[in-house]
Structures are given as structure tokens and as C-alpha cells.
């Protein structure tokens, strides 16, 4: 049966077809829909799925199940692998029993990420095989194959799709799932306990597995050589392969193409043949020169005198993502073809349209309340989530953003060296559970006089509204006892904890003042459900033009997409979510029509 599937859904179906028993992950664009899909399929196909607290936890949960012989998949975005790096690096030594696949989505561009790190390079560092799909159909096939490879080698295997595979749809063939035959269970054995002596032994084994993996990859359909020409051979990895095929067709160039689906380790013999058969080689890949550097090494070791062009020779950038147009440019330059003049478009001036917080977003009210309470001199450290958008004008309420959980810890560090200035750390509820709690405990233990604001919108919003441990249901919809953030803060030793509704501006500003004035770490929980999740629509507000003073405070201080300026008039448009925050900001009660709170 063929079905239109997004790459992430295709990966989920691949895992189901491979007969997984467990799936775990933490949301992160562009990976989130893999586990969302698996959570929906779990009951039907009799496996367990969870949103874990963070990526390290997810990988360890999967490792435990794999030790029992179960096939498992772990999902995350590229920076999530940094959080999971600790278990990963040693799991490579220990090895796995049931096939264990990490689906780690890369985001060249980047479109929705804080960096452009290359997971293929990470795989190489961890000495683990990595598969690089070019489209959703291949992503599904690779996911299935990855479980076999994992069991064959006894190693975790990484599947690295990029945004253009994760968030692309294709007509994908769906097959019946494999029925797992073996009985699952943990067998006690010293092989599961890493000691220095075992690590020394396993390291030798791991190094040997690199050649074994390369041998497997010699005869895998994901790698192939399309031999057309002895002059130019183009090697391409992942989605770049499709750009190369289209660019060659558009330009009418007859070149050989080496499709690489396993960027590490490379199939040595196939690569050697490719290098020997061509006078010049062009490597087309996004991010780091992973394939290119290995090809240079193979050429050197085998004394093959061919020219290898790519990132090292400046034909292709390490930054950003590729597309057909960029590959056409590279090919014309490499082939010395005069490039076609580009169509010139003298577009009229278009509005700048950066992403902003939604209308009715409770974060807007939370930031506004704190700005009212502490003014512009205080430092607002931020974190990863929708609320990073608080850095946009006019709120200008996020002064730092580094990585998950860093809001609290960065504020702690600042407080130690810049006394007398207020530091306020903002992070979301899901981020609080992910890596915020260690920072909170650290702030209490090491006596940081900072204020921590948990923007508790009852969801993981930015990645598409996944549940988290603070909520009353799990990934698969089972009832759960949501953990109480205020009680956690109290148990960690925080002495001043306030929970307020940010839509109630007066109460929110009062809580903010109290927290900031309190000596020692304080916590404010701004509790209000994400505006995008709200079930009943609240009555919209409107601006009474007879009462409006035209002062512009509503627009200039809140920046809500529901308030527009039409000529000289301020007008509330159809996007109004009825939160009533602007009505509380208006100095002349001109905003009316809805209900407050």
C-alpha cells in the first residue's frame, strides 16, 4: 500500500516494520514527528513508546531494553545527541543485543536550530555506523536495515536524516511488520559492566567493527555507482544525491554518480573503484566534508592520482544547506561552463516578517510583567522554546540563549561576578524537566541570588505540543500523575515560590517584584495554557476609537500580531485570542468587548 508520508512518519513506519519493542525520544525540530507517529502506532503494533525527560534518558531507557534483546529506536535532533553523548560514547564499547537505532535529525541552514553540527561527524567520533537517507522512502528502508546492521555488528546505528527529508512528503510503500520471535530478557553477564579493563578490551573490538561495517556497506543498495563517464565522477551523500541528479539533468552533463547512503564508514572497495575510474572527482555533501575527507584518505592510501574537489578546495561551503541551484553553480564552475545569467527580480519593498509570539501567547504577558517589575537593567537569561521569541521587538526580553537548560545556570554565573544587578532566568515547563532541574539545585546549593521564571504553558509548544512530566497524560495517552513544579522547587530548597496567571497582569507584576526582591533563589511559575491549545475561544476584544488616545502603548509594548495600525487608528484584527492583556495595558480603557482573565 502506498501512502503520502512525511519523512519522519516514514522513519516511524520503518521502525514498526522492523518489529521494535520500545521507542523513546525528546522533541526537537526537525525530528519530533518520528516519535509522535510512533506513539500513535504503539498500541496497534504492541510496543512501548515514551517521551523521555531528555535525550540522555531516552538513550539509556532504550539501552536497557536492548540489553534484554528488544529492538528499540531513540529519536532526537542533532543538539539532542550532545545531551545523549555520555551514554552513547560508552554504549559503543559495551555494544547492544537487540537492534538499537538512533534517529538523529540534522538541520543544515539552520532552519530551527542553534547550530549546524553534523551528526555524521559525531558518528565517526563515536565509531558508529551512520546512514544518510535521500528521501522519505529511503529513510524508511534505511531505518529497517539499520536494525539488521545493528544486530549484525552488535553496535548502535545512527540514522541521520536532514530537514529536507524529515519535513518532505512522498508516496511511500508500507509493508507488514516483522514479528519478533525471540523471548526478551536480561541475562546477567560481566559484559554489561564497564570497567577500565573491559573498556580496553572493548575498544579493540570496536575498532575492528569499523572494518566489518565497511564490508557490510560494500553490498548494500544504499550505496551505488552509476558509471557514465571517465572524466568526472560526482559523489553525493543524503539529499544532495537528488540535487546532483537534477542539476546534471538540467545542465545536460554526462558524469558518473556515486550515491553514498553510508557516509561512515564508507564502502572502501566501491570508493576505490570510483576514484580509479575518474580523472576528477567532485564531492557534494552538506555540512562537514565527511565523505570528502575519507575519499582523500582512500586515494592517498591506494596511491590513486585523481583530483578530488569539494569543500577543501572551496567549491562547496560548509555552512548552510544545498539545493539544486547551488549544485548547478558548483557543477558549472567545476566544468568551466559559462553560467547562465540569473533572472533578475527587482521586487518592490516587502515587509520584514520574523516569527513572533502568537496572539494571546501567555509568554508575552509574562515578559511584560517582569519588564514592568524590574525594568531594563535586569538581565533576562533565556532558554530554548517558543519563548526565545521574547527576544524580538518590542519585548526585547531575552538577553541570552545558549542551549537547553542554560537560562538558570548562565544567570547563576553572572550573579557570581556582577553583584547588585538582577538576573532573571526564563525557561519553559518542558525545558525545566529536561535540564533545568540540575541548574535549580545548583543555584540553591551554591546560593545564587537569582529569580527563575518557569513559563508553564502546559505543553512542549515549539515542537508541536508534546506532553511532558508535568502533565496528566503520557505520549500514548495513558493517564499520569503530573509532577508539580512548585513542589519540586520547594523540595530543592527554594524558599520563595509564586504561582500566578500571567493574564492577570497586576498579580503577575506583584509576584515578579516579590521574587526579584527576595534574597536568595526564588521561583515564579507563570501558569497559563498555550494559546494554540486553548479549546474554547474567548470573546475577542476591540478598540473603541472614541476612547483610543492613539498613544500606541498596546503595539509598542506588547507587539501582538492581533493589533494593527491602519492609518492613524489602532485596530484589533481577527487574530485576537481574547487574552485581555492589551486591555490591562491601555491607559484609557479603550480596549473592550472581551472578558478579563
Amino acid at each position, binding site marked *: 500500500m*502506498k501512502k*503520502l508520508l*512525511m519523512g519522519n512518519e516514514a522513519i516511524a513506519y520503518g521502525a514498526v516494520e522492523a518489529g521494535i519493542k520500545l521507542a523513546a525520544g525528546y522533541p526537537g*525540530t*526537525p525530528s519530533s514527528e518520528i516519535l509522535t507517529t510512533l506513539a500513535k502506532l504503539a498500541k496497534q503494533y504492541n510496543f512501548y513508546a515514551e517521551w523521555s525527560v531528555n535525550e540522555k534518558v531516552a538513550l539509556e531507557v532504550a539501552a536497557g531494553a536492548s540489553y534484554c534483546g528488544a529492538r528499540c529506536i531513540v529519536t532526537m535532533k542533532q543538539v539532542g545527541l550532545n545531551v545523549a553523548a555520555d551514554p552513547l560514547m560508552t554504549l559503543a564499547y559495551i555494544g547492544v543485543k537487540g537492534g538499537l537505532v538512533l534517529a538523529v535529525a540534522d538541520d543544515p541552514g539552520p*532552519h*530551527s536550530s542553534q547550530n549546524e553540527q553534523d551528526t555524521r561527524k559525531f558518528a565517526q567520533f563515536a565509531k558508529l555506523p551512520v546512514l544518510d537517507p535521500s*528521501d522519505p522512502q529511503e529513510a524508511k528502508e534505511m531505518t529497517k536495515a539499520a536494525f539488521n546492521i545493528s544486530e549484525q555488528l552488535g553496535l548502535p546505528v545512527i540514522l541521520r536524516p536532514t530537514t*529536507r527529508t524529515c*519535513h*518532505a*512528503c*512522498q*508516496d511511500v510503500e508500507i509493508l507488514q511488520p516483522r514479528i519478533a520471535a525471540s523471548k526478551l530478557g536480561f541475562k546477567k553477564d560481566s559484559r554489561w559492566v564497564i570497567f577500565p579493563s573491559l573498556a580496553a578490551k572493548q575498544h579493540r573490538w570496536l575498532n575492528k567493527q569499523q572494518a566489518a561495517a565497511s564490508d557490510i556497506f560494500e553490498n548494500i543498495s544504499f550505496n551505488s555507482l552509476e558509471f557514465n563517464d571517465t572524466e568526472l565522477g560526482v559523489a553525493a551523500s543524503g*539529499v544532495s544525491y*537528488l*540535487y546532483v*541528479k*537534477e542539476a546534471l*539533468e*538540467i545542465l545536460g552533463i554526462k558524469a558518473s554518480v556515486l550515491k553514498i547512503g553510508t557516509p561512515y564508514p564508507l564502502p572502501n572497495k566501491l570508493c576505490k573503484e570510483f576514484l580509479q575510474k575518474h580523472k576528477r572527482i567532485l564531492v557534494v555533501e552538506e555540512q562537514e566534508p565527511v565523505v570528502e575527507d575519507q575519499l582523500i584518505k582512500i586515494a592517498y592510501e591506494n596511491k590513486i592520482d585523481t583530483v578530488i574537489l569539494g569543500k577543501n578546495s572551496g567549491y562547496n561551503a560548509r555552512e548552510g544547506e544545498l*539545493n*539544486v*541551484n547551488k549544485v*548547478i553553480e558548483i557543477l558549472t564552475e567545476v566544468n568551466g561552463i559559462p553560467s547562465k545569467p*540569473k*533572472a533578475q*527580480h527587482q*521586487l*518592490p*519593498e*516587502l*515587509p*520584514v*516578517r*520574523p*516569527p*513572533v*509570539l*502568537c496572539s494571546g501567547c501567555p509568554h508575552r504577558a509574562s515578559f511584560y510583567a517582569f519588564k514592568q517589575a524590574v525594568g531594563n537593567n535586569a538581565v533576562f537569561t533565556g532558554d530554548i522554546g*517558543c519563548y526565545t*521569541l521574547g527576544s*524580538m*521587538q*518590542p519585548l526585547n526580553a531575552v538577553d541570552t540563549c545558549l542551549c537547553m537548560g542554560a537560562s538558570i545556570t548562565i544567570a547563576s554565573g553572572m550573579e557570581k561576578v556582577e553583584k547588585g544587578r538582577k538576573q532573571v532566568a526564563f525557561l519553559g515547563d518542558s525545558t525545566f524537566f529536561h535540564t533545568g532541574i540540575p541548574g535549580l539545585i545548583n543555584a540553591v546549593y551554591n546560593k545564587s541570588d537569582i529569580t527563575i521564571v518557569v513559563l508553564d504553558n502546559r505543553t512542549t509548544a*515549539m515542537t*508541536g505540543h508534546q506532553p511532558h512530566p508535568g502533565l496528566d497524560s503520557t505520549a500514548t495517552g495513558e493517564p499520569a500523575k503530573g509532577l508539580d513544579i512548585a513542589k519540586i522547587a520547594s523540595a530543592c530548597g527554594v524558599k520563595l515560590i509564586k504561582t500566578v496567571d500571567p493574564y492577570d497582569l497586576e498579580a503577575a507584576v506583584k509576584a515578579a517584584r516579590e521574587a526579584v526582591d527576595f534574597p536568595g533563589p526564588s521561583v515564579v511559575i507563570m501558569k497559563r495554557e498555550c494559546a494554540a491549545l486553548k479549546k474554547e475561544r474567548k470573546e475577542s476584544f476591540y478598540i473603541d476609537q472614541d476612547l483610543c488616545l492613539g498613544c500606541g502603548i498596546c*503595539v*509598542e509594548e506588547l*507587539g*501582538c*500580531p492581533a*493589533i*494593527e*495600525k491602519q492609518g492613524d487608528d489602532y485596530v484589533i484584527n*481577527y487574530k485576537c485570542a481574547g487574552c485581555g492583556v492589551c486591555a490591562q495595558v491601555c491607559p484609557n480603557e479603550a480596549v473592550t468587548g472581551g472578558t478579563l482573565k
Partner: protein
Amino acid sequence: MKLDIIITGVGGQGNVLSSRILAQAAIKSGLSARTSETIGMAQREGVVMSQVRMGDIIYSPLIPDGEADILLGFELAETVRGLPKLKNNAVVIANQAAIVPVSAALGNSGYQADKIKDYLKEHVKNLYLLDATALAAKAGTYKATNIVLLGALAQLNILPFSKDKLLQVILDTVPSKYKEINIRAFELGCSFLEVM
């Protein structure tokens, strides 16, 4: 055959859903299809663009610049931003309603709707401009703007499947409680082009 369609708009306008509907209709007609979508931060009121490719042989999900056959514009300025993706003689079906970004309300960026509209009229030969937001509101909700535009596109008879087939896929995709609104929105889009 091969048909490349660009859908431009602002996050929250149902861009992703529309590209899936077109791709699904193509698959139901025995064609291969690919889409590429903007998912993530830009979905919060930012610039979004979906790409739909249908036909016999398709490579990547990204349409090269200057290669798209059709542009479906959900928002006035975003329609113009998408023009470099188009072939000469491409067909543009666009919403003339503007979504003024916060940056413009703050005075940091202009939004000259008249100039943008004039530019479109001057530079696009096959232009169909309609107030899809108003038609959607007439159907029951401004949120059906995307369906109005899909209706207008279907009416042009340039898709490799029928109007009825597209409407059927829409109804299979949207929640059943919004069926009536979506049928009305689709038909308002179709009939708008009939009277043009």
C-alpha cells in the same frame, strides 16, 4: 508530465495542509508526488513556503528557482516574495488580503499594499487575484482561506486531476465538523474564477 507548485504565506494559514492535499490528490491520480514544508519556528507568524512536485520522475522535494509552474499565494506580500521561484508564463493565484506583520505596526518595516499589488499586476501575465480571506469569512471562518484558493486553482483546469477529486481529498483530510464550511469555501473559490 511534471507540475511544480509553490505555496507561499504566513505561518498559521494552513500552508502545510494545502501542500499535503495537493500531493494526496496527485497520488490518488496515479502520479508520484513530493512536498517540502516549513515546520518549526517560522510557523509562528513567519514566512512559510511549501513546495509540491507531482509527475512521473521527481528528484528532490525542492523546486529550483525559475522552475515552478504555479504559485498559490495565501498572502499579498508573500506572493511577491515567491515570484523568483516561477517560470515565465507561470500561473499565479493569489489572495489580495494582507497580513501586516508586527514589525510594520512598530514602524520598523513598511507594508505598501498598493505598490505590491501593482507590481503583481504589472509583472504576472497569468494572474488571478481574489480576496480569499473575505470569501473564507463568508463561508464561515477566515481559517478556510487556503481552501478558497484551492477551489480557485481547481477551477482553472490546470491540475492533473479533477475539481471533484481535489474536493474529495479536502473532505477526507479536514475534521468532519468543518466539512460544510470547507465545501462552501471551496465552491466560493471556484465560482469566483467563473465570474472573472
